[in-house]
């Protein structure tokens, strides 16, 4: 990645390490990307957390807890959280299920519909806001949503030709780390699943 400055290369390596990858690890290179895309017809190019449907190679990484995911992609705890919605504590009759349920299926069977929504919001706030404020929710988040996984894609260049659409999708989060992303005129990145993207240079033509 000769087109990057020393500082940009260091930033790329730092983000890779945050994801648990080697500093210079590239899951695909530009050549491989082009080879993959030759197989794609006129439809959109898919980057998916489901490797079987992804046109761009992804690496699946297990994630054990919301705290671990926060270390990988979360925002700093001391950042601006003015728009973050911190949900109210769960009622005791819901949290007590963590001690009494013998399986995740049994836990889910005992949860109210509102608890699913609350825990989903709590998980989002954990990553987007001050995770310390979600300490009461953390055990339920982990019990309901973890262990999980994320799909990683890293490379030097991601070139999206003019008029092309890339779709980021799947049931799990997707994390991208590139040296440079170039989006051609009229091209679009459509995002359908939680996504974290890091690039040192971003070009919109």
């Amino acid at each position: 990645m000769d087109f990057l400055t020393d500082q940009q290369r260091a930033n790329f390596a730092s983000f890779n390490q945050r994801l648990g990858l080697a500093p210079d690890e590239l899951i695909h290179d530009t050549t491989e990307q082009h080879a993959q895309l030759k197989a794609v017809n006129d439809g959109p190019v898919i980057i998916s957390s489901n490797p079987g449907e992804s046109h761009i190679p992804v690496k699946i990484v297990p994630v054990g807890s919301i705290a671990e995911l926060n270390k990988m992609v979360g925002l700093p705890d001391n950042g601006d959280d003015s728009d973050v919605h911190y949900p109210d504590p769960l009622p005791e009759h819901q949290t007590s299920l963590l001690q009494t349920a013998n399986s995740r299926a049994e836990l889910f069977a005992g949860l109210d519909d509102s608890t699913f929504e609350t825990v989903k919001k709590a998980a989002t706030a954990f990553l987007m806001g001050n995770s310390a404020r979600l300490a009461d929710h953390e055990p339920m988040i982990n019990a309901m949503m973890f262990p999980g996984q994320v799909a990683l894609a890293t490379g030097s260049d991601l070139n999206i030709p003019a008029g092309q659409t890339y779709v980021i999708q799947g049931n799990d989060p997707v994390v991208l780390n590139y040296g440079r992303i170039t989006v051609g005129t009229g091209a679009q990145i459509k995002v359908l699943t939680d996504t974290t993207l890091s690039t040192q240079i971003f070009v919109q033509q």
Partner: protein
Amino acid sequence: MNNQTFYFTGNNYAQPATAGGNGGNGGPGPKGTDGIAHYLDYSCPPIYLVQPGSGGNGGNGTNGTTGSKGAKGTAAPNGILHFGDIQGDVTILVGGGNGQQGGKGGNGGDGGPGGAAGNLQKSIVNIFQIGATGTFGDPNFKAGSQGQAGHAGNGGDGGDGGDGGTVVVYYNSSTGNFHTQTTAGQGGNGGAAGTPGTGNGTPAHGNPGNPGRPGAAPVIKLFKNG
């Protein structure tokens, strides 16, 4: 905005919610009992030994049921974007998916056909035509009426729009501008009412479902790294 660089959204539903069940058609009315009559002559009124019965009314069609409520739209995903150094204008749109359209109301059932009137076994008993017999209809006894038509089912309510996600953007420098746009996921349309059944009476046409409510507004935050 010629370019829409990023579009965070939930997928829309391809199909409306499940339609309501159609009402059942009424069963046919029972046939009237057969009768027996003697005539001195066909120009004379019959002498009923057993009067034929009129047909029974057909059964009523049952009502169509209400269509299912549409599901809530898919929430827009969350995004964290670290852009570094940007060249050009970047446009970011965020909006939840639209709610699912409500299911169509079920059609009302048709009223069952009325039963036929009983037949009349006729015998001529004058000296010239004695023994002449036949089976005929008797205009004094009629077929039953068709049953009542079933009411149409109401359309299901549309699902609420999907909630917006939160997209946070960090960048070091930019030669262009950011354009951001947030849209709430729109509520799904209500389902159409079903069709009333045919038959007697004045069956209700049913009402279309109510549209869903918009989802929560998305949030886009931009931060320039210090």
